[in-house]
């Protein structure tokens, strides 16, 4: 600004643009107000915010698909408490700041009854303060143990903690007499958290990390890091912590460099995409994953068999896409939430919260949930299995 201006015009203009802004924000409020009338016949609202796009879209995408499918099926079967269920979802774009805003929107604008969401630890941690302050039941779908440890009154979660996956890998290594390893991790939240856990758990598990490498977002070639690990004397096994395209790239690079030491990846690779993308190079790679991934190979009396096969069949036929284990977290989250509401007989937040806490022997896709005031995860290591890539598919490892 500055200089000689036509005053009338600029004043009017400023008024107009400001008004437009007010109208925009106001309109949001108005629609919100309209919807929040008439409590009785209005649907039960389940809110979610997921990383459908952005860095963790490999989590959010199947999670959202699963939730939409779950809610549709639920409504087709008469809904909940005789009411329809409405899923209100926002794409956090994997940004924690956006996640924070959307949680407020869910709570205050949409006035949801419960929130099931938060694909990543960052997204989840960023909203916990709001959840606790505004007292709304929240089931997170993210990995880190810090979400429920220490226990927060209103916060629950469904997936195994990241720690469990690493512990499982280390246990498998030890059972094969591998104790000196090199790790490579992606620099995103998932990879960094896995790396942190690996460092933390190594000592007690009797594992020694000889090489500790990182790769960047969008990297197209990891041979330098793997070469560096390869040339580290004494490395007996290799662990890759990451997700998405790099999982396949690492498998290919590993093969290219002619490495033959045992190759481990994490549950971030638990998707057929990984095997297809690696184009044969994934053979022999071992990963820890939810039993869901190899549900066909489970013994018939395995507790997860029935519910997991049903979910897998429904998802794959509906989306014409192979399942990933992440959708399973969302499935379990909704299962816990809807059953708690059912038991509570209302959507009263405190009652629902208490009912979630009382979840007992609930058979989900990921395992059996038994929660308590001291345990807001309620899942043991049991349902986590080691699988190995064989003949272009997943094979349960004994």
């Amino acid at each position, binding site marked *: 600004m500055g200089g000689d201006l036509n005053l009338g015009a600029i004043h009017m203009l400023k008024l107009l643009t400001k008004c437009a802004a007010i109208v925009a924000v106001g309109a949001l409020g108005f629609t919100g107000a309209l919807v929040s009338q008439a409590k009785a016949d209005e649907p039960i609202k389940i809110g979610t915010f997921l990383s459908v*796009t952005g860095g963790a879209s490999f989590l959010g995408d199947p999670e959202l698909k699963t939730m939409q499918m779950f809610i549709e099926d639920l409504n087709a079967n008469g809904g909940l408490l005789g009411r329809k269920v409405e899923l209100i979802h926002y794409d956090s774009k994997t940004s924690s700041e956006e996640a924070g805003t959307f949680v407020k929107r869910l709570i205050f604008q949409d006035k949801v009854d419960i929130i099931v969401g938060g694909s990543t630890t960052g997204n989840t941690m960023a909203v916990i303060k709001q959840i606790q302050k505004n007292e709304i039941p929240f089931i997170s779908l993210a990995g880190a143990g810090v979400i429920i440890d220490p226990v927060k009154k209103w916060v629950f979660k469904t997936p195994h903690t990241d720690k469990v996956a690493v512990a499982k890998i280390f246990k498998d290594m030890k059972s094969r007499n591998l104790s000196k390893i090199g790790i490579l991790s992606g620099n995103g939240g998932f990879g960094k958290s896995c790396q942190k856990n690996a460092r933390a758990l190594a000592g007690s598990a009797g594992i020694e990390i000889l090489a500790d490498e990182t790769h960047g977002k969008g990297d*197209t070639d990891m041979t330098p890091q793997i070469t560096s690990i390869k040339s580290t004397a004494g490395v007996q096994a290799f662990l890759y912590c990451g997700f998405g395209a790099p999982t396949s790239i690492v498998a290919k690079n590993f093969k290219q460099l002619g490495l033959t030491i045992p190759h481990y990846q994490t549950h971030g690779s638990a998707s057929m995409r990984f095997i297809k993308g690696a184009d044969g190079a994934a053979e022999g790679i071992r990963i820890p994953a939810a039993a869901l991934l190899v549900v066909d190979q489970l013994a018939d009396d395995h507790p997860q068999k029935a519910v997991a096969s049903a979910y897998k069949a429904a998802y794959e036929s509906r989306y014409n896409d192979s399942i990933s284990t992440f959708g399973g977290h969302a499935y379990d989250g909704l299962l816990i939430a809807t059953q708690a509401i059912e038991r509570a007989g209302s959507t009263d937040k405190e009652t629902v919260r208490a009912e979630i806490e009382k979840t007992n022997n609930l058979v989900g896709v990921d395992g059996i949930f038994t929660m308590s005031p001291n345990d807001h995860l309620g899942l043991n290591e049991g349902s986590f299995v080691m699988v190995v890539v064989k003949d272009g598919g997943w094979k349960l490892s004994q």
Partner: protein
Amino acid sequence: MLAEFLQYLISGVTVGAIYGLVGIGFSIIYNSSQVINFTQGEFVMIGGMATVSLISAGVPMPLAMLGAVALATIVGVALEKFCIEPSRNAPVVTLIIITIGASIFLRGTAEVLWDRNFHSLVPISGDNPIDIAGAKLLPQSIWIVGSLMVIVCGLWLFFNRTLLGKAMLATSYNRLAAQLVGIEVRNILLLSFVLSSTLGAVAGILIAPISMTYSTVGVMLGLKGFSAAIVGGLGNPMGAILGGLIVGIAEAMTAGYISSAYKDAVAFIIILAVLFFMPNGLFGRKVVEKV
């Protein structure tokens, strides 16, 4: 020791060639319009993703590749016609923001049209690595570097031996003078978008077997390609290739010898250092202030 060094070098050259391929597109469009076209990465994405989707629809691979390149070129033309041309008189920053808007639009469209998964393409000559003194080289890397050289030669011939190419070069040096000697500057601009979208898509197809392809693959590649073009000196396609190689090799050597966690940071520090001593990049045109 030598094997490791060679391995880092192979990685650096391969990755650098990829950055260079993307960087060339930035340079060509910059030359004819002074615009940094941030959709260059999306051309790469379209090349890869369209090939994948055409193949999965049953189209034979060579045809699928052609189809993908054609699609990227159409997008490039549309971008120039509907976004850049109507705004020709806008400031450069504004044009950059338009291309950023376009890149968001194209990514969003790709996610709706295709999917958010990552895909691979079958390498052209298999994936049995070639052993060079203990270092392993993938045939696809040879394809990438080879194509880059072919493209370089092709561009050189085009710019130096054809009337059209010379007209493009003339336009980049002095738009007004070019106009005065009867060069249709608007067509040159369009041509530059055709060229770089085509090159982008070719790059996308070539690198997919190595880097995978997905809706956001162009984001980081675009950024690195831009860095390559800048380090080499904007407007000089050969500079973009050299810039790409510098960035690629710096990343690989840092990851190998110093710290893989800070390899991108080191690459950027090298870029900043180059710019500190050569504010117009390695081969950028020196702008003598004429008053």
